[in-house]
């Protein structure tokens, strides 16, 4: 889960996406790559259960069993927290590669990497071993530009690019979408963003108050089955797994007649 720009919803998406994969029976781990700014543990509601972290694991100070936090709500869901105290240079490419190999050997089907913001070493570390990339984009100029920048980096600096393998499969995920503002002409539309960024659309997550409430409670928003953002994340997971699911929550709710006349 990557973006270039900060604060667009990578961690929210990582938590929801990993939870959704596990809900569908896939053994999944979600790794926080934001060394020094641990957040995923809070969004996943396991902050009080962190004993060891990703860097302890990379440096061989703890093993996988000691470090992985097993989610208490969803079977087959595990969290690998970032270090809060260590320097981000403690993550080496070899070390990360070893941890990923260990996770694969432990039968994890999906390894979801929550990237830090930026395009420097931390973000590059998070995307280096990726087979697929979800580029999280807000309908806003700087986020769209940064998404394109990030795509350039994935295309040239990922392991797949370096080894001349088949390129990383790229998906666009638009988050914090406000259909009413789009129909007012104040926000880039889904079609505009798809055309600008030029990669396949995985989904659109509407702006929703529940996301803040979910983070307050440490519950991934996908567990809120009544909320549009939660439902949109479920659709995203289904689409990622190959199902045909139409887009929802992309049309503005029609205004009442009075509002239409005088709004």
């Amino acid at each position, binding site marked *: 889960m990557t973006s270039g720009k900060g604060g667009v919803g990578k961690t929210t998406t990582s938590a929801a996406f990993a939870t959704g994969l596990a809900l569908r029976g896939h053994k999944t781990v979600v790794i926080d790559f934001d060394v020094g700014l641990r957040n995923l543990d809070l969004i996943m509601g396991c902050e009080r259960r962190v004993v060891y972290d990703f860097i302890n694991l990379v440096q061989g100070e703890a093993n996988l069993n000691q470090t992985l936090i097993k989610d208490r709500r969803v079977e087959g869901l595990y969290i690998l927290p970032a270090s809060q105290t260590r320097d981000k240079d403690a993550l080496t490419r070899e070390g990360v590669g070893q941890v990923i190999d260990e996770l694969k050997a432990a039968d994890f089907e999906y390894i979801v990497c929550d990237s830090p913001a930026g395009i*420097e070493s931390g973000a590059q570390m998070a995307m280096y071993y990726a087979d697929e990339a979800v580029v999280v984009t807000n309908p*806003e*100029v700087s986020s*769209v*530009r940064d998404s*394109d*920048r990030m795509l*350039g980096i994935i295309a*040239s600096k990922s392991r797949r690019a370096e080894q001349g393998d088949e390129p990383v499969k790229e998906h666009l995920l638009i988050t914090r979408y406000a259909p009413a503002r*789009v129909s*007012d*002409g*104040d*926000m*880039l*539309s889904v079609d*505009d963003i798809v055309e*600008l960024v030029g990669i396949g659309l995985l989904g659109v997550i509407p702006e929703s108050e529940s996301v803040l409430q979910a983070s307050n409670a440490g519950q991934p928003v996908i567990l809120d089955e009544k909320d549009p953002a939660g439902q949109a994340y479920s659709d995203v997971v289904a689409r990622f797994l190959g199902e045909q699911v139409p887009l929802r929550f992309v049309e503005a709710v029609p205004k009442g007649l009075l*509002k*239409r*006349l*005088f*709004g």
Partner: protein
Amino acid sequence: MSLISYFRETKPSSAKLAKERLQVVIAHQRGERNSRYEFLPAMQREVLEVIRKYIPVDQEQVQVHLEQEGDYEVLELNVTLPDKP
């Protein structure tokens, strides 16, 4: 469109402006990305020719790499010399 905004002066929507601006910056960004690497194969061929004037080497013995490190770029040229006879 509401009745009131119908009578208001129609100004171009800000989203339209955003899209036009992004089309320009993204095209520029992509151009930079590509041109940065575009010359490499041609340069590699020419370098190979020059080296071959002096040393018998194969194509894969001359490697050219462009690396971005923070704010600066490093162009790395690697020539593997043939074994001594």
